[in-house]
C-alpha cells in the first residue's frame, strides 16, 4: 500500500463485527496533518469502535489503517508513542490522586519525565486538586484529567472521544483553546463526537459516519455551503402567510416549520438574504420576533444519517430515532 505523508490518519475499507452485528462496514476516512477533524455520528454508528481500532485495542476484520503516514497494524505498538488518546469514559485508579494517576500512566508506553506531569496539571487546571483522590472528582474534572493523560506524550496526533463530556462552560472554552493551539502548532486533532455545535466551532474537516460507513467527508465550510438557512419567528396565526412569502423567495419545498410551538420557520437560502426575507415579511405586515441565519451542521447531520437504510440489529419496539448497539 502506498503511504501518504500528508495524512496523519487514514482508514481504507475498515470493517469490524461483533458477532452478527456489523459495527464498521468499510470505513474510509482521511485526516490531513495539522487539522482538526470532527468525526460525527449518531449513537451506535461505529465511532467508538473506530477509536478502539486506531489505538490497538481491537483488531479489524478487514481493511487497513495508516497512522502518521505509514501503515499500522496492532503489533506496531510503538507508533502509539506519538499518539495521545482519550476514551469516551476516561479510566483512572480511583484511590490515587490525579498526580499519581498521571505518574503511573506516564510509566507506560513512552516514558515521560515527571516534570511533564506538573505542566499538564497546570494546563488542565487541576494543580490545586492534584493531591486529591480521583474518586472524589466530578465528571468534568475526570475529563480534564483524561485530557492531561492524552497529552502526556506531547503527541503528534490526538484521538479524542467525546472530549467535552461533562465539562462546564469554562472547561469547554479552555478545551477549545487548547485544541486550537495544538492544531496551530502542527498537531492533528481527531474528535469523535455527537455534540454538533462543539465540532462546528472547532473542526476544519468533518466526517459523518452512519451505520459503520462514512456518508460525507470534507472541509466543513464546503459541506455547509449547501446548508445555509434563514430562520424566522412569527406569530402562530401568521405562519401560513409567512411560509408563502418565504417560499416565494427561497423556492418551492425550501421552507419548513422548524419549531411548531414557537412558530419558527426555516428557509434554505443564502445567509446574506436574511435582511431581504425580513423586508418581504415586513412589507406584508408580518413583523418577525426572531431572525437568525447560519449554516446548519445539524440539518446536514440529520439529513445524512436519516437517509441510511435501517440498522439490521435494531430491536423491535425501539423508540424511533434511537438506535441501539454497543458500537
Amino acid at each position: 500500500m502506498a503511504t501518504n505523508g500528508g495524512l496523519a490518519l487514514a482508514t481504507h475499507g475498515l470493517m469490524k463485527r461483533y458477532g452478527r452485528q456489523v459495527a464498521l462496514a468499510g470505513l474510509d476516512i482521511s485526516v490531513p496533518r495539522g487539522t482538526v477533524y470532527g468525526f460525527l455520528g449518531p449513537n451506535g454508528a461505529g465511532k467508538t469502535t473506530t477509536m478502539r481500532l486506531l489505538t490497538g485495542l481491537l483488531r479489524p476484520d478487514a481493511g487497513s489503517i495508516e497512522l502518521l503516514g505509514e501503515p499500522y497494524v496492532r503489533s506496531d505498538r510503538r507508533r502509539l508513542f506519538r499518539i495521545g488518546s482519550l476514551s469516551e469514559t476516561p479510566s483512572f485508579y480511583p484511590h490515587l490522586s490525579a498526580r499519581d494517576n498521571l505518574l503511573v500512566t506516564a510509566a507506560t508506553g513512552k516514558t515521560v519525565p515527571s516534570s511533564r506531569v506538573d505542566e499538564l496539571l497546570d494546563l488542565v487546571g487541576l494543580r490545586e486538586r492534584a493531591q486529591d483522590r480521583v474518586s472524589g472528582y466530578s465528571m468534568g474534572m475526570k475529563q480534564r484529567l483524561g485530557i492531561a493523560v492524552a497529552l502526556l506524550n506531547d503527541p503528534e496526533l490526538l484521538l479524542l472521544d467525546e472530549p467535552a463530556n461533562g465539562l462546564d462552560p469554562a472547561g469547554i472554552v479552555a478545551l477549545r483553546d487548547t485544541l486550537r493551539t495544538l492544531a496551530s502548532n502542527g498537531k492533528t486533532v481527531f474528535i469523535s463526537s455527537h455534540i454538533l455545535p462543539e465540532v462546528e466551532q472547532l473542526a476544519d474537516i468533518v466526517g459523518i459516519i452512519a451505520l459503520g460507513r462514512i456518508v460525507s467527508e470534507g472541509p466543513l465550510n464546503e459541506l455547509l455551503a449547501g446548508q445555509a438557512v434563514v430562520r424566522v419567528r412569527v406569530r402562530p396565526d401568521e405562519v401560513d402567510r409567512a411560509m408563502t412569502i418565504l417560499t416565494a423567495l427561497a423556492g418551492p419545498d425550501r421552507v419548513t416549520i422548524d419549531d411548531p410551538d414557537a412558530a419558527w420557520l426555516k428557509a434554505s437560502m443564502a445567509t446574506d438574504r436574511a435582511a431581504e426575507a425580513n423586508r418581504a415579511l415586513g412589507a406584508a405586515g408580518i413583523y418577525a420576533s426572531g431572525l437568525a441565519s447560519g449554516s446548519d451542521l445539524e440539518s446536514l447531520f440529520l439529513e445524512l444519517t436519516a437517509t441510511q437504510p435501517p440498522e439490521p440489529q435494531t430491536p423491535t419496539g425501539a423508540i424511533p430515532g434511537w438506535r441501539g448497539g454497543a458500537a
Partner: protein
Amino acid sequence: MTLVLAGVRKLRTRSASLVALLIAVALVAIEFVVVGATYRSSTMPADQTATYDWMLTFPSAYDAVISFVFVFGGLVGMIYVAAVSGTEWSWGTLSVAVARGESRSRYVLATFASVAIILLVGVLAVFAAGVLAAAAGAALASLPLNGLTDGSALTQTALKLARCWVAVVGLSSVGYAAVMVARSQMAGIGAIIGFYIGSAVAPLFLPDAIKEIFKYLPFSSSGDLIGIQGPQSGGATMSPVLDPNFALVVTLAWLAGSLAIAALATERAEITS
C-alpha cells in the same frame, strides 16, 4: 523497573491491600492466641498436646507460624491478586496503557511483579504478627519462650520464609492467570475458590491413581516446597509429600505457566472497555 514501581505505587495505597493484610493477620494471630488460651497439657490427648507444643514452643513455633502464613496467606493472596488485577479490566486502566503503546505482555508481567513485591511485604507482616501471637499464646499457656532467639533456627526460618513467599507468589499466579483469562474480577475469584475447594475435596472421592496427580497441583506442591515437618501426630510426623526442592521446581513451573497464560490471553484479547 519503572513499570514495576508504578505498579507498587498503585497497590500500596489501595484499600484492598490493607484489608487483605488485616484478614491474613487476623486469621493467623487468632489461631495462636486461641491455641494458647485453650492449652491444658494435663487434660488434652497426647496428639493434641504435641500439636499445641509445636505451635507454641519456639523454635518449632516459627515453623508453625510459617505454615499458617502459607495456608491463610496463600488463599487471601490469591483472592487479593484476583481483586486487584481484575480491576485492570473493569476500570479500563489496561486499555489506557495499551493505547499508549505499552506492550501487553510487559504490562501483565510488570503488574504481577509489583503484586509479588506487595505480597513479600504482606508475608513478612503476617509472619511478624504470627510470631507475636505465638509468643502471646505461649505466655497464655505458661510455656517458656527461650527458643525464640535460637540462632540456627532463625537462619532456617529466614530460608523457609523466603520459600513461603515463593509459595504464596506461585499460588497467586494461578489466581492472576484465572482473572486475566476471564477478564473479570468475580469470575477470577470464583475460579480460585472453586480450585481451592476442589483440590482439597476431590482427592477424597477419586481413585488412588488419579489422586497422585493432586500432589503436583499448586496448593499441594507450593505447600511442600517450604519443607516444614509438622508435629508428631498418631505416632507419625506430618511431612511434605514432594521433596521440597522438587516442589520448588513444580511451583516455579506453575508460576511460569500461569504468567505465560496471563500474557498470552491479554495479548490476544479484544479490549472493549
